């Protein structure tokens, strides 16, 4: 076994020991439970397997969630990066809109659910827009900071060497702001997951949130716990995908930071 593989295994072990331990404790502690609200883990897992591991059930329960999350989150990313880049480059515009942006950002996305229902109904469009709106802010504000923080010498160089507008944007501004854009995108992902669940409790478009609320209303307590488990695993997998993309795109940044730390 080579060193890299060994390192990977030990990092997986480091990540998994606590969840595994907690599941074991849960399993043992709940095995004799007769409480309606805290059923034995074994029966929760049986219900989980039925609702979330069967391909047909998985598609039915999870696909609507993935759909609204991916569209809403993508909208937030694209609009946040575009608007953030413009505001980051045009300082007077940024100063003029900052107070408004800070106010809007402070409103939790889920608090706007009633307004969004009035404006956009209770279907997929409303849910997508609510996710997009709520997770737009961290992307926007981090992009602004990232763009404003670009090394001025790089911009001077771009002027002397006569880069066109597009080249300056793609070769200097966006890569330079990318570490902060990713920080914003990470926060936005967590927010969009929360809004997704809340938005799905409205209307009948399905998804994890809908399933969760329906299970609770029908006193299907095992199914309810199973849905919570599924939600946790879903969020965790999203985070892993995010980390893989970030590691690839920000490889230079990670290596450079590691080098700076080892030298100081």
């Amino acid at each position, binding site marked *: 076994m080579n060193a890299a593989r060994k390192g990977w295994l030990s990092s997986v072990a480091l990540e998994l020991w606590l969840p595994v331990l907690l599941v074991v404790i849960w399993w043992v502690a709940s095995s004799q439970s007769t409480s309606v609200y805290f059923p034995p883990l074994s029966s929760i897992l049986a219900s989980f397997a039925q609702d979330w591991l069967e391909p047909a059930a998985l598609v039915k329960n999870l696909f609507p969630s993935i759909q609204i999350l991916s569209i809403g989150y993508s909208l937030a990313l694209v609009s946040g990066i575009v608007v953030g880049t413009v505001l980051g480059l045009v300082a007077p515009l940024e100063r003029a809109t900052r107070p408004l942006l800070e106010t809007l950002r402070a409103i939790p996305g889920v608090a706007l659910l009633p307004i969004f229902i009035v404006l956009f109904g209770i279907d997929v469009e409303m849910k997508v827009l609510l996710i997009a709106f709520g997770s737009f802010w961290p992307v926007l504000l981090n992009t602004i900071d990232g763009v404003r923080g670009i*090394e001025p*010498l*790089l911009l*001077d*160089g*771009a*002027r*002397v*060497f*006569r*880069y*066109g507008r597009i*080249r300056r944007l793609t*070769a*200097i501004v966006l*890569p*330079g702001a*990318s570490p902060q854009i990713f920080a914003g995108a990470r926060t936005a992902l967590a927010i969009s997951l929360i809004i997704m669940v809340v938005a799905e409790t409205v209307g009948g478009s399905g998804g994890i949130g809908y399933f969760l609320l329906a299970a609770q209303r029908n006193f299907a307590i095992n199914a309810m716990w199973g849905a919570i488990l599924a939600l946790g695993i879903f969020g965790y997998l999203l985070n892993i995908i995010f980390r893989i993309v970030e590691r690839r795109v920000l490889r*230079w*940044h990670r*290596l*450079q930071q590691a*080098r700076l730390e080892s030298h100081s």
Partner: protein
Amino acid sequence: MTIATDDITLAARGLGHAYNGREVLSDIDFEVGRGEFVCIVGPSGVGKTTLLRCLAGLQRSTAGSVSLRGQEMTEPLPGVALVFQDYSRSLMPWASVARNVELPLRANGARRGEARAAALRALTLVGLDEIAAQMYPWQLSGGMQQRVAIARALAYQPTLLLMDEPFASVDAYTRADLEDLMLRLQRDLHLTVILVTHDIDEAVYLSDRVIALNGRPARVAEIVDVPLGADRDQVATKSTAEFAELRARVHGLIRGSREATS
């Protein structure tokens, strides 16, 4: 010394600059001919960087004008390359060395393949190989990084190469190496170079002419011809009587001004 009109690469005429009404440069007048190596020398804080930014077209002077081959420089014109003092900030940390060097070419319409080939040739000229070309700039030593910045300027095939204190952030040995590299490149490629420095030895060692700045606001104290020939050596040249005399003269020009103003 007069330069034939056709050979004038850069001319500063009555150049002056003020920040919020406070004048830092005043009535700067000089010409740089094609193929010349000219150093602008002056004490720290005299406004050398402001002057260089005006020469590069990065900043508009508040008085007078700068022209490149007869064309007034109100914005960066084609054919001007710039090497900054701080290599750790002027190179893109997210791009490989090769990409850093080829980007100005790509931005000016070169195809991917030819830009890469030109970048590798320029890197070879400054003594960097293909392994270094694949690395990130910050994985190299300071001197190597400044070589990358020089290669980026060379690949651009500049009409005028401007250098702002390019060797001020490296150690003394690296500095001597880079000075000799610049002398060799300037001679072999017939470059026209304007280098700004606060180091009198460096200015005299590298230049065909030294433009000495002094005073507040800074003016041209004198333009000193440096007839030391094309073949220069860190030890031999610097130990000649001629070098010592030139050095003393430039020193006097800069120091004399301080006594006059304080």
